[in-house]
């Protein structure tokens, strides 16, 4: 459920570090909470992001959620397939459902991210709160 080779945020993003690049997406927990994803508002290549900044929007049938950049940096690539197939986020959150690749400006920020074990442990408390997060109109 939570691959060991990734880093995680408390906002349910994952990060795959490859050299100076960070590939970013949302976790399996996040896609389950969102339900059917039907639209993704992607950033533009070249956008400069601060860590914690909202850089994409995921819309499911029931909700609208911001995606926050786990690191500071510059957007190098976006997953254009999500424009036509937003459901890839549900089907393959760690694979074809990736959102963007960011050139990492400050590698020390990676130290603040969670390991798979830490992330999984953080979800135990979260699940009790989940009824508060699901809001329909």
């Amino acid at each position, binding site marked *: 459920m939570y691959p060991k080779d990734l880093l995680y945020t408390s906002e349910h993003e994952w990060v795959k570090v490859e050299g100076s690049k960070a590939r970013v997406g949302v976790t399996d927990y996040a896609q389950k*909470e969102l*339900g*059917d994803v*039907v*639209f993704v*508002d992607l950033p533009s290549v070249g956008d400069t992001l601060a860590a914690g900044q909202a850089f994409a*929007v995921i*819309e*499911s*049938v*029931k909700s*609208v959620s911001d995606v926050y950049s786990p690191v500071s940096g510059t957007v190098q690539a976006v997953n254009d397939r999500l*424009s036509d197939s937003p459901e890839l986020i549900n089907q393959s959150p760690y694979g074809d459902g990736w959102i963007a690749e960011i050139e990492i400006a400050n590698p020390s920020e990676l130290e603040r991210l969670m390991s798979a074990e830490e992330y999984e442990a953080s979800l135990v408390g979260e699940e009790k709160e*989940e*009824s508060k997060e*699901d*809001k*329909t*109109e």
Partner: protein
Amino acid sequence: MAQATPRVTPLASYHEKLGARWTEFGGWRMPVHYSSIIEEHRCVRERAGLFDLSHMGEIIVAGPGGVDFLAWSTTNDPRRLGPGQAQYTCLCTPTGGIVDDVVLYRLPPVEAPGTLPQWALAHLGAAQQQESGPPAFLAVVNAANHEKDLTWWRELTIHPPAMPPEDYVEPALKPFDLHDIGDDVVLLALQGPAAQEVLSRVTRPATSLDELTYYHCRWGTVAGVPALIARTGYTGEDGFELYVDRQNGGTLWEALLAAGSSRGILPVGLGARDTLRMEMKYALYGNDIDETTTPLEAGLGWVVKFTKGPFVGRSALVAQKVSGVERQLVIMVMQDRAIPRHGIPIVANGQAVGRVTSGGFSPSLGKGIALGYVPPAWAPVGTLVDVEIRGELHPARVARAPLVPAHIRR
């Protein structure tokens, strides 16, 4: 609102077992979906879905004065209802604002022994169980308005609000009672093209369903449970709503899922209930209609019967009918992939002309859709407007409702 702990339906443990995701709605903790909203939506359009709607409020209006009281306090005409017939109607303020939108059933006569649930037995006298007896009514109200409606109706009889004298009716000497039976009733809805086939497998007499037409109801047993069986719903599909005693809710829920398993029945949450009703342009109280909107603005003129005699809100609604409404509820279909949501501006010629009152993704069209109010100039079908989503304008076209053909059985 709903600061207090949300209420749960008697079937909460059944939903939990089915893997429900939960939401809070109208002061209740309700399933929003089990599998996926899109899958559940398609299941209702193509096969059959089962909803627990026990959050809805039920109020019995019985007694010799009941029909006159309802004729005065609602916009439709309950005097037109025969036994076992239903109508959609509104409660309005003296200025024509909508207090609630309600389905009103005139309860049917009892045809077979053992078909009357406790919730009905407790409040209907022997005479009211006969076809010739005085009419008794069941009003089904929105969960969030349940207490408000009870208070509104009770106050109308003892301390009516100020209103034009021509709208006022002296309380008749004939008595009537309001019985709040919301806690006693489990309401399940079985909706979709296979609904009748599934329901007939567990209903006695099974043939009775064939004779039951849209917006009619009768007593019967379903899975051995006494029920009011109504051919009503909020999805645009053929289907039924079943009002049973609280303690029988679980038996009925499991029996219907079992009876429908060969037809691919799914339990359906409030998420799909919302997308299904939006495609039909059915208004949702609190989103599309409230005390600041009138039935005429909301396109519900067909439930306002001006010629039936005085009723609360009549003068204001007559005046609005004569002068014409300043805004109308329309349904719009997005022309790009953006998804409109409740509260965002509707823009025409660079000016905000209204707001989206309900918005979301239509699983049937695969596009964003919205309900909202616009001035009549922008309301004709085909009009192109924009909606503003996260600071950007996205084109939307006013469409003819419903967006998918209704399959209700006339």
